[in-house]
Every structure is written in C-alpha cells, then in structure tokens.
C-alpha cells in the first residue's frame, strides 16, 4: 500500500515539474522575442533619423538658389545638421535632432511665402521626401511605444510575472516622450523680410 502511494506521489511531482518546465520555456521564449522586437523598434527610429539627416544637404542646395530666402532660417538648418554630425552620445544627439526638427519646421513654414520656390520641382520632391521622413520618424517612435506597451504588459500579466523575475526580465521599459522643445509650435517671424 505504502509503495503504491509513494509511486503515485513521485509521478505527480515529476509530472508537475515537467509541466512547469515546459511553461517556463514557452514564457522565456516569448519574453526574449518580445524583447528583441522592442530593441529592433528602437533601432528603426535611428534609421529614419539618419535618413532625414542625409536629405538635408540636398535641401539646402535647392533652397540656396533663391537668394532672397530667409538667410537665418537656412543657417538654422545647416547649424542643426552640423551639431548632429558632431554630437557625442545619445543626449547630445537627441538635442541636435530636436534642433533640426524645429529648424525644418521653420524652413517649410517660411517657404509658404515664396511661390516660385514652392513651385520648383526639386523643392516639391524634397518637401515630400522630408515630410514623409518626418512621418516615418514619428511612426517609428509610435511603433517603439507600441512594443514597449506590449513588453510592459507581458512582464506584468499572469503567468509571465511569475517567471519574469526569475529570468531577470522584469524591468519595465520607458516610453518615448516628446520633449518640451518638440511640443512647442513653431513661431514664424516674417518681420525680417
């Protein structure tokens, strides 16, 4: 009698351990793949930002030909790009990116007042490329936030939360926030014209 009971108990324990093991493996794998998705999403943002920086020289060349164009605005764009190229570390880069965003916004806002520039085919193509790139940066950030939400939810819900701490994967990630600078609307000053 005792032997039968022991065997059953042993089998039950082994069965339990096996099931827990399988669940743990499944959870670990899904955590890893989500983590990689988050990292990939973050890298994508940089891809789009670089694309934007690469388009700038072409833009400056096209706009320079319109001699009467607001010199200050053009210089703002060029300066921002140089700052970006010489940035050391992510904080500097982030600041430079914000400067560039602001400068580009000013440039396009001011361009509204120059009908010949607006009609220029090169400028129109560049405008579409740059505004599309701005969109892509925004969507890349949106996608990153979506992945962060997925990650944060995953590590906090049951049964993942039981294992996440064990695997060292229970740190919530930060959402990408728009900076104060980016939230400000661009004020265009036509008084200098």
């Amino acid at each position, binding site marked *: 009698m005792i032997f039968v009971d022991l065997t059953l108990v042993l089998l039950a324990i082994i069965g339990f351990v096996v099931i827990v093991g399988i669940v743990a493996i499944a959870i670990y794998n899904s955590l890893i793949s989500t983590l990689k998705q988050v990292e990939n*999403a973050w890298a994508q943002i940089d891809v789009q930002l670089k694309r934007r920086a690469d388009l700038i020289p072409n833009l400056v060349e096209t706009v320079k030909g319109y001699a009467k164009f607001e010199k200050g605005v053009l210089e703002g764009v060029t300066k921002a790009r140089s700052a970006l190229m010489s940035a050391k570390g992510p904080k500097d880069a982030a600041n430079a990116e914000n400067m560039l965003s602001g400068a580009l916004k000013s440039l396009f806002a001011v361009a509204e007042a120059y009908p010949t520039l607006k009609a220029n085919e090169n400028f129109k*193509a560049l405008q*579409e490329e740059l505004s599309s790139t701005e969109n*892509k940066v925004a*969507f*890349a950030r*949106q996608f990153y936030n979506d992945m962060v939400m997925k990650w944060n939810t995953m590590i906090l819900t049951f049964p993942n939360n039981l294992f996440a701490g064990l695997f060292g994967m229970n740190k919530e990630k930060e959402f990408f926030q728009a900076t104060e600078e980016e939230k400000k609307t661009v004020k265009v000053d036509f008084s200098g014209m």
Partner: protein
Amino acid sequence: MPAMDFYKQISDNKRMTVLLFLAFFILIGLLAGIISILLGGLNVYGFTYFTIFGILIILFALISYYSCDSIVTFVSGAKEADKKKFNQLYNIVEEMCIASGLPKPRVFVIEDSAINAFATGRDPQHAVVCVTTGCLSRLNREELQGVIAHELSHVKNYDIRTMTIATVLVGIAVMLSDFILRFAFYSKGNSDSKDSRLFIVLIVVAIILALLTPLIANLIKLAVSRKREFVADAGSAEMTRNPLALASALEKISKDTEPLEAANKATAHLYISDPLKNNKGLWLKNMFSTHPPVSERISLLKGMSN
C-alpha cells in the same frame, strides 16, 4: 454607442469570426455526415466517403491558399506601380509598414476614376496592396494614409486567407447540398420498417438542409466579411492614430456613386467599400452585403477619436 477603443473592437470581432467559422464547420460536417450515412450506411463505407470528402476539402483549400494573390491581380487588371511616378504612394505605404511592423508589400495601381483599394496575399511576406488612380487624385495625403492602413490591417490579420478559406467552405457546402439533392433517392437502406422510417426522416431533413445550405453558407461568409471590415477599420485607426482620416476618406467614397469597372461579384469582397454599390441601408440588403454600411463605419471611426 459609447466610444470603443480600437483594441477592444479588434478582439471582439476576432472572437465573432471564430464563432462564425465554427458554425460553418458544423454545417459542413452535418452535410458530409448525412451524405456518408445515406451512401454507405452507418458503417465503414460511410466513414470512407467522409474521409474522401475530407481529403478533397483540404486539397481545395491548399490550392486556393497558394494562388490567391496572382489570380486576383490578374483578374482586376492591376499593374505594378512605378516607383518614381507613384513616389508619394510608396512613401505612404512605407510609413504604414513602419507603424505596423509589417514587411513592405508590392504596390499595384488600377486605372479607374472610382475611389477604391484592395489588398491580397496569403501572408504579410507575399502581400499586394492596390489602389485606383481615383484614390490618388481625389484623396488627400491623410485620407490615402487611412485607406492604405486599412488595407495593411487586412494583411496583418490574415483576412485574405480567412476569406479565401470561407469561399472554399461555401463552395464545398454548395457542392455537398447539390450532391444530397441528386442522390438522396439512391441511398442504401434496410427494408426493416423501423429503420426505413428513420431513413425517410433523414432524407427529408437532408433535402431541407440541402435547399437552405447555399443560403446559410453565403450569409455566414458575408457576416465574416463584414466583421473583418470593422476590424480593419479599427486597425487603420490603430496604425495612423488618426481615425478621422479614414472616416473622411469613407465619406468621399460614399458620395461617389460610380461603380468600379474592374470589379465583379467574385472580387467585390476584397475592396475597401462595395465596388458594385450594393448596400443602401435596408436590413435585408445589408445581410447580403460584403461590407457593412458606410454610415456605420464612419460613426464607429468618429467614436474612436476623442
């Protein structure tokens, strides 16, 4: 109706689709079972017929699964879009791919002034998105973005695969009913009085079911199609975070009464709005429509933005 956020919309609709498919399989299982019994009796012969049907069903499904994208683009006269000429379109598609994490699909264009679009392909790696030239000239950039996002949602949710399977199921259901109606009278049966009474009941049930099945199967398929349209609308809102863009595009589409020449009954369900301009709000007519009423779609989208 209180404003629903898009995540809840999407999960509600997906659940509905699963239930509808369950109904489909039960219906077909019933039919195949009846036929098997009628033909071979409740024994190994009947079971053999059932297996043969099963194999045919799987074969049909596989064939349609692998060939759906090329067939559709060929039938609608769509041509792959030139990257330089349709630069903005490619940009918008790329933007939406970034927002959704999908790989870039191939982009096709149909020369037609009607505003419409469709997506096809068995999975995101083999997807095709197609818009009319009417879309490009009459929608602004935001609206076009909303439409493309809707189509990419279909790709993301494997809707094309779902609807292909649904079409195959309808075909099978119709085929089985046809079979019953033709061969019900040639069925095997015992001369035992108790058994023959049961058999007559079975035959009557079979005939009624056979007459109703094509109708029921089609209604189920259309209900699935409508649910997926709502899911795709919600998916578009999720991608662009701008539900009003698609709402505005739908408004423009609803005001456009011109039917799309390239579409026909077989491909109508793929488009973003009924290209044959069928539904006009009547309840009964709506049950036979591949798309939900545009007014309902617009109000749902507006409800998502607050």
